[in-house]
C-alpha cells in the first residue's frame, strides 16, 4: 500500500468531520454520537437485527457465540445514561478535541475497535483504524455497518485500512496525519509507533496480564465456572485473560479448586468452540505441559483436544501463561499476595475476584490497585469490561484530548 492512501483517507475523514462540526457544532455532534451508541446497543440486543443475524451466522476466528459475553457487557455501557456518566467523569474542553484519531489494533480480541472508536467519537474525533493484516476485520465492520444504519453521518467518520505492522513508511504516515494515535498491542508495537509519532501524541496500551483470586468465602463452583469462561474466551489472548488464579488456603485447597476448574473448563460451552487447527499453538500447549512436569509438586490436568490446561503449583507466585487456555492455580494467603504479584507489578490489568466482602474486599482492592490493576470484577465478567473501564489506569476520553 502506498502511504498516499492513508493521507487520502485521512483527508476525507477530516473533511467529513469538519462538515459535521459546521452543521451541528461540537455539542450537536456529541449528542448524535451518544444517541447513535445508545441506539446501536438497542439494535444489537434485538435478535432480529440484520447485522446481528449476519454476525451470528458468520464464520471467523471469533464467532458470535464467543463474542456475545463481551458484547453484553459493552452494550450495557453504551446506554445514554452510562455514556453521559462517563463524559461527566472526564470533563474536557471541546476545542482541544483532535480532528483525527488513529487506532492501531491488535487482533487478540474482537471488540477492541468498537471500544476505541466509540471513545474517539465521543470526544468529537474522526477515526482511522489500522487493522493488522492477519485480523478478522468483520467485527469492526459490524460496528460501522450498524452506525451506518442508525447515523450515516457518524459512520462516515470511521474508516479502516490494513497493513503489516512495523511497515515504517505506513506507520509514520499514520502518525503524521493523525493528531492522536491509540495503540493496542505488545510493548514493541507501542514503542515502534511512538518512534514515528510527535511527542505525547500516542496513547499506548501495551502488554498487560491478568489474574484471579478465589477467597475462602467464595462459592468454588461459581468461581470455577466463571474463571473457565474467562480463560476460554479468545483463547486466553486478551489482556484481561487470567494467567494465574490464586486460591486462598493451602496446597490442597489449590489442587481442589484446580480440579473443579478443570471440570468447569471441560463442561463449558466455550470449550466446544474449536480453535482453528494450528500446529504452532498445539506445540506451545505441549511445551507448557512438558515444562510443568519439571516443576516440583505440579499437578497437570489437561484436555486431550488441547483447548485448556490447568497447572496447579504449590508455590505462590504469579506465573505468566503462554495463553491458549493454559492457566496456573496456586495457593495464597492475603499477606502473601503482594510478594506473589511483585514480578508483574506495573504489568497487571485485571483481576477476577471471587468471594471477598467488606473490609477484606477493600483491602484486596487496595492491594491490587497498588499493583496497577485497573479492572476488578467477578469471575466470568473479565472479558466484558464496560466502555468506561479505565484501561491501563488512564482517563479513556481525556487521554485522547490534545
Amino acid at each position: 500500500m502506498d502511504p498516499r492512501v492513508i493521507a487520502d483517507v485521512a483527508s476525507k475523514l477530516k473533511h467529513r468531520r469538519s462538515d459535521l462540526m459546521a452543521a451541528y457544532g461540537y455539542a450537536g455532534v456529541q449528542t448524535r454520537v451518544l444517541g447513535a451508541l445508545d441506539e446501536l446497543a438497542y439494535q444489537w440486543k434485538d435478535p432480529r437485527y440484520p447485522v446481528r443475524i449476519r454476525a451470528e451466522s458468520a464464520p471467523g476466528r471469533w464467532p458470535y457465540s464467543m463474542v456475545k459475553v463481551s458484547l453484553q457487557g459493552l452494550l450495557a455501557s453504551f446506554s445514554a445514561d452510562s455514556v453521559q456518566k462517563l463524559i461527566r467523569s472526564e470533563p474536557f474542553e471541546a476545542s482541544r478535541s483532535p480532528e483525527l484519531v488513529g487506532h492501531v489494533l491488535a487482533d487478540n480480541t474482537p471488540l477492541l475497535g468498537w471500544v476505541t472508536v466509540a471513545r474517539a467519537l465521543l470526544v468529537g474525533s474522526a477515526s482511522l483504524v489500522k487493522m493488522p493484516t492477519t485480523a478478522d476485520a468483520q467485527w469492526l465492520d459490524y460496528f460501522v455497518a450498524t452506525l451506518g444504519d442508525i447515523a450515516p453521518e457518524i459512520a462516515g467518520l470511521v474508516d479502516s485500512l490494513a497493513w503489516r505492522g512495523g511497515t515504517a513508511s505506513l506507520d509514520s504516515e499514520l502518525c503524521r496525519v493523525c493528531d492522536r494515535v491509540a495503540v493496542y498491542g505488545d510493548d514493541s508495537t507501542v514503542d515502534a509507533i511512538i518512534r514515528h509519532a510527535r511527542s505525547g501524541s500516542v496513547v499506548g496500551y501495551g502488554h498487560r496480564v491478568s489474574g484471579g483470586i478465589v477467597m475462602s468465602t467464595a462459592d468454588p463452583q461459581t468461581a470455577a465456572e466463571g474463571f473457565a469462561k474467562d480463560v476460554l474466551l479468545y483463547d486466553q489472548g486478551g489482556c484481561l485473560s487470567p494467567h494465574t488464579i490464586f486460591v486462598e488456603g493451602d496446597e490442597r485447597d489449590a489442587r481442589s479448586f484446580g480440579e473443579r476448574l478443570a471440570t468447569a473448563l471441560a463442561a463449558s460451552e466455550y470449550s466446544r468452540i474449536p480453535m482453528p487447527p494450528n500446529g504452532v499453538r498445539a506445540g506451545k500447549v505441549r511445551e507448557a505441559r512438558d515444562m510443568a512436569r519439571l516443576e516440583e509438586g505440579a499437578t497437570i490436568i489437561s484436555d486431550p483436544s488441547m483447548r485448556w490446561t490447568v497447572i496447579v503449583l504449590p508455590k505462590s507466585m504469579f506465573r505468566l501463561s503462554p495463553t491458549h487456555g493454559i492457566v496456573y492455580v496456586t495457593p495464597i494467603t492475603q499477606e502473601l499476595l503482594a510478594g506473589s504479584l511483585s514480578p508483574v507489578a506495573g504489568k497487571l490489568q485485571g483481576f477476577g475476584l471471587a468471594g471477598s466482602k467488606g473490609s477484606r474486599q477493600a483491602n484486596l482492592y487496595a492491594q491490587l490497585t497498588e499493583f496497577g490493576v485497573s479492572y476488578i470484577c467477578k469471575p466470568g465478567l473479565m472479558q466484558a469490561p464496560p466502555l468506561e473501564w479505565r484501561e491501563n489506569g488512564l482517563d479513556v476520553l481525556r487521554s485522547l484530548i490534545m
Partner: protein
Amino acid sequence: MRADLLQSIQRYIVNPAPGQFEPLTLALFRRQYDLNSAYRRYVDACPSAVGDITSLVDIPSVPAQAFKTVSLSCTSTDGCAAVFESSGTTQALAGKHWMDSDALALYELSLVQGYDRIQSALPANAPLWAIMPPAADAPHSSLSHMLATLGASHWFWDDWSLLARALTNLTTPIVLFGTGFAFVALFDAFPETNWPLPAGSVVINTGGFKGRTREIARTDFYSLLRDRFELPDGACLAEYGMSEMASQFYAIGEEGAFLAPPWLRTRIIDPYTGDDVEAGEPGLLRVYDLANWNSVLAIQTQDMAVADGAGFRLLGRAPDADVRGCSLTVEELWTRE
C-alpha cells in the same frame, strides 16, 4: 560402566557401527535418568514408567526451553568445565547447557567429526574464517567454541571494514562461517560492494534473524550470499544447531535438506498427538543427540520442520516462540556494544 559407555559413544562417533545407536541411546538415557535429578523428576512425571522405556521413541524429550528454568546436569554444576548459554534478553532468561570435562571432550569430538563429514563440500586445507567474537571474548557462546574447536584462523567481529578489506584481498579459497544476521550486517554496511571469493570457497551460515537486525526471506538471503560473494549455490552451506545440543546438522545449497551425522537423529512430531507426523507433513523437530553426555539427549524444539529424504527442512521457528538460537547470543553481545 560410565567409562565404558563414554568410550562406546566416542567409538561410535568416530566409527559408527550399524545397530549401535539405539542401545547406546538407551544406556545414555538410563545414565541421565539416574544422575540428572531434574530430568528424573521430569521422566517420573511422564505417563510411561521408566521401566517401560525400551526404544528410542519412548525416551521422554525435554523442551529446549527447560534449559532456561532448571539445571539439567548429571554432575554438580559447580564442577562443570563449561556452560554454554542460549540467547535471552537477560542473563536470567538464557538457557544453560552445563558440560563436565567428559561432556566437553565428547562435544568437541562431535564438532570435529560432524565437520569432517562435510569435508567433500569444502575446499581442501582452506582456512576457516569466523564472523563472530573469539571464544576467549565469548566463553559461553557455543558457536564461538565450535569455531575455535574447528580451528578458525581469522576472527572478525564488529569491524565490518576490516572484514571487507580482508575479503577483498583474498587470493586463495576460504571457508567463511558466520551468523545470518552478521552476513546481512556486512552487506548492509557495504551495499555497493561484492566480494568475489576465490573459486572453491564456501560460506556457512547459521542462525536466523527474527527480531534481530532486519529479517530477510530465506530465498532472498541465499540470493544475497550467491551474488555478493559470487559463489555457486553448492558453495552456500547452512549449519543448524543450538546451545542445548552437542551436535550439528548441515545443509548444502538453498534447496539442500539438513542432514545429521549418525550419532544424531530426529523425529518430526505432530504437536497434537505427540506421535510422528505422516510422511511429508510438517511438525515439531525433536532431536536425539548421543553427544549430549551431561544433560539430556532427547530435546523437543519449537522449530517446525518437514522431512526431506534422509534429512529435514526447517519451516521456521514457531512465530510467537521466544527469539532464540545460538547465533543470537552473538548478536546480544553485539547489541551491548
